[in-house]
């Protein structure tokens, strides 16, 4: 029955397909599932089969609203149909159903603007991951002043659990924002690198556009690069008053609650 329910075609195709035929000759189906006064046995199983794909589409459209918007209803449903054939749900929660969608899009053939769509899916997956990530207390901004100056060189900063950092080949954050705001001034889908920090603050998910140097600096810090080295490397990539910019970025990120703490022990 499950084989039929998960089949992407019509219910008649499903009961006649090889995986189902191995279990049951379609001519024998009435010997397993009773017909009702109004529906044949196949039609009754078809009620479940028809609802399966709708449920999967609804779940993935909820997690990937911008991907669904870009593709349109029909193409998105076809994508989902192929996706759940390759990655059926194996978890008790539908929250995890879409975990492989960005990679699936990246590997798919015949998907229009595949690289853009893959980037968009990566961003939306990051949003759902951040939405559901465990809560961790943010490092209070006033704590910054309490770190001894000598400890900063080797200090290691720890981001909150609800934090992701991503680089894209397309301006997907702008596209997602226009979809969320139901605007119609979508950015032109042209290659243009973009960098985004996705994090949760006060139980809301935020998406912060970054410049490339800011992204690289934040990536180094969030990956545990000692503060002194991260600053030196970032300063080397910047021109002019690098110290001021790095300090301003750091101050803003701490104020946004992106870090949960800092290991400033001098024994490192």
């Amino acid at each position, binding site marked *: 029955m*499950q084989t039929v329910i998960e089949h992407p075609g019509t219910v008649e195709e499903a009961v006649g397909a090889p995986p189902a035929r191995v279990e049951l000759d379609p001519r024998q189906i009435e010997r397993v*599932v009773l017909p*009702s006064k109004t529906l044949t046995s196949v039609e009754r199983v078809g009620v*479940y089969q028809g609802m399966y794909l709708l449920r999967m589409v609804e779940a993935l459209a909820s997690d990937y609203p911008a991907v669904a918007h870009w593709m349109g209803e029909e193409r998105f449903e076809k994508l989902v149909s192929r996706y759940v054939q390759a990655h059926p*749900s*194996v978890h*008790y929660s539908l929250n995890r159903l879409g975990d492989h969608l960005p990679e699936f899009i990246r590997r798919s053939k015949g998907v229009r603007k595949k690289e853009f769509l893959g980037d968009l899916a990566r961003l939306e997956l990051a949003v759902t991951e951040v939405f559901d990530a465990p*809560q961790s207390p943010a490092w209070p901004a006033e704590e910054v002043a309490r770190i001894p100056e000598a400890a900063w060189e080797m200090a290691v900063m720890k981001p909150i659990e609800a934090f992701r950092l991503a680089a894209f080949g397309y301006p997907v954050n702008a596209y997602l924002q226009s979809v969320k705001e139901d605007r119609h001034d979508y950015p032109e889908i042209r290659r243009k690198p973009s960098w985004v920090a996705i994090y949760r603050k006060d*139980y809301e998910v935020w998406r912060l556009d970054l410049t490339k140097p800011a992204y690289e600096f934040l990536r180094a810090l969030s990956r545990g690069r000692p503060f002194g080295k991260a600053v030196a490397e970032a300063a080397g990539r910047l021109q002019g008053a690098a110290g001021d910019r790095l300090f301003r970025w750091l101050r803003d990120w701490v104020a946004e609650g992106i870090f949960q703490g800092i290991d400033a022990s001098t024994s490192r």
Partner: protein
Amino acid sequence: MSVAPQGSSFYFGFEILEFGLKPAASGPGANRWGFPDLGIGVGLRTVHYAHILEKWPLVDFFEILSENYMETGGRPLRVLDQVVERYPIVMHGVSMSIGSSDPLDREYLQKLKALAARTRALWVSDHLCWTGVSGRNTHDLLPMPLTEEALAHVVSRVKTVSEILERPLMLENASTYAEFAASSMSEWEFFGRLMEEADCGMLLDVNNVYVSAYNHGFDPKGYLDAIPPERVSQYHLAGHTNKGTHIIDTHNDHVIDAVWDLYRRSVARTGNVSTLLEWDADIPAFDVVHAEALKARAHRAEENTVALAAS
């Protein structure tokens, strides 16, 4: 004050006065475990979070979909923690897959137990169904073959689940759209024997009885009359979609009069039991959902008056 179940190996320790609840009535209307009548509740749904947090509406209790809070550390859990402080909570799941031939998911059950502790849930329910085999989850409530073999299988699993959760399991009758030729008993007979042999309870969904009766051509009144009243811990009510040839349990509309009639018939047997309205698609404003739920209170009162007059 705590309520101890009578003649049960389970102990719940409900702090029911915390919410000003009354313990379950004794006598013919009392349920097997002394579960309190929580009154009339509604499902806690995301689209209503803002309204609930702002208005703190007068709702007797909330029911949560367990799986919606088991895989998140974000806003849903934060909202739930706040709701738990103000309302009684019961938990209702859709992924236990008690009828599946796959092994029970122990990690799932441990998380379910932890959530029940966190929410101080008064009881935990799921469905008599299977949701998938071979490690897959169709996220649907698929029908069981109602056979002796299936009964023995489910009895054994319910006992295991109850031991893990350290509380009795309540199972809901799902709406079904197909029947198996191999079935050797009716659903109400299956439920009656299951509850007796596994010592579990029933979340009686009156709309589902109506839907399945329509789809399979049995008498819904006969179904309700066959359910042991002391095993009913909660009622569900909902709207559905009638396709002519069959009915789909869509939870997207008001409860129809025929279902209200069945509800009253069942309440006459069970006495007042916690009742919840489900509205899960095309969800209207909270007040609309709550007003629909509160119709149950009027139906209960009317039925109580009839019973009193008859006595």
